[in-house]
């Protein structure tokens, strides 16, 4: 299965939930936010949200930045 992850194409072994994707990527879910097809996924829906084939997925976190 194929998705666009943070702008790059990314191969998945099969259908995954958001929880499974974060786990696979070794990303701590507490400090990120996830968008699937431009819609934010609520944190309590991670385990129930299956990522569709071809989806655009964004995983973001906080980085340094201010009034530059």
């Amino acid at each position, binding site marked *: 299965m194929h998705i666009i992850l943070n702008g790059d194409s990314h191969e998945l072994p099969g259908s995954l939930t958001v929880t499974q994707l974060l786990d696979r990527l070794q990303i701590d879910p507490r400090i990120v936010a996830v968008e699937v097809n431009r819609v*934010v*996924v609520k944190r309590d829906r991670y385990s129930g949200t299956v990522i569709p084939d071809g989806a655009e997925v*964004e995983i*973001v*976190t*906080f980085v*340094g*930045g201010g*009034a*530059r």
Partner: protein
Amino acid sequence: MIIAGRTFTSRLVVGTGKYPSHEIMKAAHEASGTEMVTVAVRRVDLSGKGAAALLSWIDRERIFILPNTAACYTADDAIRTARLAREAGLSNWIKLEVIGDEKSLYPDNEALLEATRVLVREGFVVLPYTNDDPIACRKLEDAGAAAVMPLGAPIGSGLGIQNPNNLLMIKDQARVPVIVDAGVGTASDAAIAMELGADGVLMNTAIAQASDPVAMATAMKHAVIAGRLAYLAGRIPKKPHAVASSPTAGLVTPGAPARS
């Protein structure tokens, strides 16, 4: 300083970018006495190189985190980024930036107003970065902004408050806090902003890129206190040289009175 019902003892808001290291950032935050720092939202680095998580370098017991929408160039981008920031679990506050031009980094006030309206409806506490236009500030306030954050000078320019008269006008009419965002270069700039009546000052580059960020952070702490106290203390009037025997005496420096 009270914003959206939340009280901040310190009137200095600082950034988290461009520091030489996370260690220095942490020390500068502490030295500044700040109670609110702003952070950007970016894609997670998937390269496996676990970048040290920014948040672990911020003392969240004492410091409130204000996500921002830096680098968004449209209302849609900014709205989407704000939603992601909220979902990342820190809070529903957002420092709203909609940049209008890559070179000046000035805000696009039209798009900013649109994004403010949408986000306020969605329950965000919106703190928009705007230019020093009193009309734009009033409209943002009318749209529900929890504070207005006019720029003092271009982001990163260090030029100081370019148009004090505009800030006076903005503060005079505002019913929400006014936080000068961008343009501060050194301590006196922060003091001037506060003396003009600003409720707070936000800065990043001035501290992070100083030769000694921790010393500059300390300087800024004192400057903001100094400026605020001076504002409250009621300064002496300015007395330019009075030109004798003229009806316009002393009114106008560097202008001059009429002579026959």
